[in-house]
């Protein structure tokens, strides 16, 4: 099964072409150039778009615009190629790439997306409850390195690839492939305007 996987939820967009578990090619760039990566992956893997069997797409949490670029591309691909797809949480992919570590994604506005009791959550980095020695990975861990290290966490050097939600893990984690239009973004925050109306 030839799977095209990508995640554009964080600043570094990742993508991978995986055939029955074997990683044929991998890329890291930006959400805006995702399709360039996809094109390069297929050329590297000697595949044609029609050869794709399924998509594995990062659904966030992360940058709202980034998440949407990935999902809009996935929906366009599915429409044109009639392939199925599955969504994979960006946090789950990060965790899979760094076993035992806590994934921390920058949520901007001095907040982070992370797993609290195994569930995706948005909170202030100060509010994070950590066991000493916990390894924290992700762009949020990099951004709040000092604060997390003060709490006794261990944050790998900035260039460490464990900070990236690498798409090979999306391909590995993807389950229950179905219509890509049913793969929903994981925003974890309502739009500001909505909050204002509710008040």
């Amino acid at each position, binding site marked *: 099964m030839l799977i095209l996987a990508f995640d554009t939820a964080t600043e570094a967009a990742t993508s991978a072409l995986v055939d029955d578990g074997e990683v044929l090619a991998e890329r890291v760039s930006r959400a*805006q150039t995702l399709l360039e990566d996809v094109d390069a992956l297929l050329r590297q893997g000697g595949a044609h778009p029609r050869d794709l069997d399924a998509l594995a797409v990062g659904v966030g949490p992360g940058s709202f*615009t980034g998440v949407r670029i990935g999902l809009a*591309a996935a929906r*366009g691909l599915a*429409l044109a190629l009639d392939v199925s797809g599955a969504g994979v949480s960006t946090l789950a992919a990060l965790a899979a790439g760094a076993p035992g570590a806590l994934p921390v994604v920058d949520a901007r506005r001095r907040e982070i997306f992370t797993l609290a009791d195994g569930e995706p959550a948005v909170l202030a980095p100060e509010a994070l409850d950590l066991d000493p020695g916990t390894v924290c990975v992700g762009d949020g861990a990099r951004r709040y390195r000092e604060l997390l290290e003060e709490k006794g966490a261990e944050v790998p050097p900035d260039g460490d690839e464990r900070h990236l939600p690498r798409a090979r893990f999306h391909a590995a984690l993807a389950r229950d492939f179905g219509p890509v*239009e049913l793969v929903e973004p994981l925003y974890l925050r309502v739009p500001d*305007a909505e909050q204002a109306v509710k008040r």
Partner: protein
Amino acid sequence: MILGIETSCDETAAALVTGEGEIRASVVSSQADLHARYGGVVPEVASRRHLELVTPVIREALSEAGATLDDVDRVAVTQGPGLIGALLVGLAAAKAVAWARRLPLVPVDHLNGHVASLYLQPDPLEPPFLCLLASGGHTMLLDVRGHGEHELLGTTLDDAAGEAFDKGARLLGLGYPGGRELDRLARDGDPKAYAFPVARVPGLDFSFSGLKTALLYAVRDLTPEELEARKADLAASYQHAIVRALVERVREAAAQAGRETIAVVGGVAANSELRASLPDARLAPLALCTDNAAMIASAARFTPAVAYPGYLGLDAYASR
């Protein structure tokens, strides 16, 4: 056939148009109701909805046209100007469809799109002409010399004409978007009841912000009962002031550019008083006045296509 995709503001739209400019399908999913509770378009809310709707509208356009993607030879998409997060949804989907099918992509300027709504069948207009583009986001006088070739003669210095309509409607308690409601109410009112001033600015530019303030003052001094009684007169007078300013400037611009044909496009082209005040002008068909994808596909007929793989890294732009 050209597949057009438009997601620049609060309409998610897809269309299929032939190379000769015949509309085979034009699907527009308006988000107006969604944004009404906020009193205006909220970019994050709009972008979320675009993602939900972008492929369903394409699917619907294909089925309406009785076509499949095999019949499509070009994908056209709005690249800007507009809400950047909203544009990126349409662009990502368009790139993906084009890439998967190895089709060329035509990045279209939204304003060119509005002008190109006049080039569609059954009665396409041929340049040159003087074009007023008036919508919620834009008020522009364009000397259109050829397909996709125009010079900007004048624009608004503050609010767009459609924005002035919507803000006036809100002051009169007509909800959002209120331009259409204000137009309806104005038919029962006296356009001469109030003398609302429209600022004369040099050249061929517009200014509508003073007008809105004048309406605010007029409304502020009224009790709720008085406002109810005078609402139609206020709407009629306010609309008359906007339309008069537009018509005067359009005539001046046409004379200055030496154009005999005047055309009006954009959401405000649906206004009944404006249509009546320019009886000799070419007006975009009502269905093509507000944002739609048929106009984007139409513009693509006169815009160079980018061949695969040149468009894969293409970015959207919020403004020019």
